[in-house]
């Protein structure tokens, strides 16, 4: 491989990793603070993508789809937490997995009933349809650059919220000791509800951003869910910084795996995960105290 090709592939890997981070961040927050293994996270991603398709097709604008779709997702996230998830905080992980897996099936059937089984394309916003040259043969779609920048901005925003606001402080406190937080007079019920909703919205937002790139199809949620779990485990469960590092690592490993070991490329990210866990059983930035 020439150096220029390595550079291009690095770029590919980072770009993929940034999108993975956006999906995985919600998953890791929900697990870290609420202690819930949320299989339905992939369904929220899918729902976001389908909403983007559904609204963009009718209004012709992806921005409009995001503005209309995200409030819908706030409602969906809130209702799912209130009606289902909140009843299982005291239970073990198996009950939670059963519940959230059940939700996956429900959302898949809903998707089938509402949107059908066809593959749908989502047009990019017109202002972002151009591309820039990358080497003599390939060009780089502006929309891909846009999603990367958007993911980066959201990552910085998340960091700001968690480190710099009162809400973020309670989240961090809740992650290390929920009982103590409650004893200090913070309404944990509300906190959890808000966090779960935020996680659902993050997943849906990634689905919306990705929709023009990935097209929209049944089962798209499951694929991303598995990779996101890998990212979360590599990064250390509950750690957002870890998820960021993990996402970039998975993105780059996956990209180079595809080029260098095409026959076994699907195994490369899992090999990376195994290697990381061998040396750091709690993931790159997982905290030993973080246990529920």
């Amino acid at each position: 491989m020439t150096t220029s090709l390595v550079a291009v592939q690095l770029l590919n890997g980072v770009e993929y990793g940034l999108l993975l981070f956006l999906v995985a961040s919600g998953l890791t927050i929900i697990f870290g603070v609420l202690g819930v293994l949320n299989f339905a996270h992939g369904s929220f991603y899918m729902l976001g993508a389908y909403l983007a398709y559904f609204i963009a097709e009718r209004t012709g604008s992806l921005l409009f789809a995001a503005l209309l779709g995200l409030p819908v997702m706030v409602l969906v996230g809130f209702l799912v937490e209130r009606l289902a998830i909140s009843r299982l905080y005291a239970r073990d992980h198996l009950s939670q997995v059963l519940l959230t897996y059940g939700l996956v099936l429900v959302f898949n059937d809903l998707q089938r009933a509402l949107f059908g089984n066809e593959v749908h394309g989502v047009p990019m916003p017109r202002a972002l349809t151009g591309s820039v040259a990358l080497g003599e043969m390939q060009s780089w779609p502006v929309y891909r650059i846009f999603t990367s920048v958007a993911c980066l901005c959201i990552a910085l925003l998340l960091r700001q919220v968690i480190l710099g606001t009162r809400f973020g402080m309670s989240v961090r406190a809740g992650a290390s000791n929920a009982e103590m937080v409650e004893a200090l007079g913070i309404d944990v019920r509300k906190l959890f509800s808000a966090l779960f909703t935020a996680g659902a919205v993050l997943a849906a937002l990634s689905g919306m951003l990705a929709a023009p790139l990935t097209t929209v199809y049944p089962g798209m949620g499951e694929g991303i869910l598995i990779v996101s779990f890998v990212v979360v485990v590599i990064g250390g469960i509950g750690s957002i910084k870890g998820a960021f590092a993990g996402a970039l690592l998975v993105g780059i490993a996956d990209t180079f795996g595809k080029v260098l070991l095409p026959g076994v490329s699907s195994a490369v990210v899992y090999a990376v995960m195994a290697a990381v866990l061998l040396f750091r059983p709690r993931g790159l930035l997982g905290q030993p105290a973080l246990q529920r």
Partner: protein
Amino acid sequence: MRTPLSRRAVLAAASAAAASAVLPRRSFAASKAKIKIGLLLPYSGTYASLGNNITDAMKLAASEKKNRLGGREIEWVAVDDESDPAKAPANVNKLVVGEKVDILTGPVHSGVAMAMMQIVRQEKTLTIVTNAGAQPITGSLCSPNVFRTSFSNWQTSYPCAGVMLKDGRKKAVGMFWNYSFGQESMSAFREGFTKGGGTIVKEIPVPFPTTEFQANLSEIASLKPDAVFVFFAGAGAAKFIKDYAAAGLMEKIPLYGSGFLTEGVLGAAGPAANGIKTTLHYADALDTPANKKFREAFKKATSREADVYAVAGYDTIHLLAQALDKVKGDTSAEKDLIAALEAARTESPRGPFRFGKTHNPIQNVYVRLVKGGREEVLGLAQKEADDPAFGCAMAT
């Protein structure tokens, strides 16, 4: 309209049939009774629309025959195979042993078809494969009681090599989903391309169902081949086409593939698909009276557009009708019925159709070009293409 049995209903029927197992299996007296046609097709999951189109086209063809085959009224028994090979043996048994269908049709998924082959080779049920293109069905696992009305993977990809070479493209990269369908397509293309003097610079297997292509697109850009041959289908195909165009490769390195690259994905792929050349045994735009009549009738019956999958379902019933008329509906006369099917001919919407020695169709393969978001037929890629029948004893 389609009324697939619910799983519970099938189970109930199967247990009822098992409880009253005194019914003779294929008695001659039954020839006046209804003729039971089993449909093993996906009615849920990714391939649901394929299963529905095949079913509705079969029913359309049946209605053209007044719902009678060889003088016997048709009774449909549908089972949702969920495109799940793991559930296939149980589903096949439901139809073959439980329902004792006279004729089994389906499935879409090749994995399901392979599981089905194991059973129907033993039970000797007359079986018509309506989609699955796996080579062994009419190759190493071929069987006198098994026919196929769709295609073999070889037929969809081998002719593409010739088309590419004729366009003067001698250096190609091949990229495919690394499972049996993709591998068989790739190997058929490789066979044709190297035989015709072309060189395959690199083959890129992509794990199924991965749709992250960026890394491989950068690789293709650095290899600078004359053309790229790919096998992807459905959602993956739409994504690949969009990515390929967005990376600016479509104008520089033309894209070729088996027809499944563009079947049913042109709407999702949009203008990105313009310029893609594919080969397949059917094209929506085929300008023949048979195709026009079929497409109009299908649209009238279902208010959907017909496609390559529907064509296979439609032909299945017309071929069966011919054969069953010849044996006067007597499905117990197995040898005569098989001989009658072997001799059956139809002017299919896809063009002239007959069975080859291995019971795979001998059919024209067309060159199709996407232009202005629609598929155009450029002509024949291969006239009366016959599958080479790898390892089938019936071929000799």
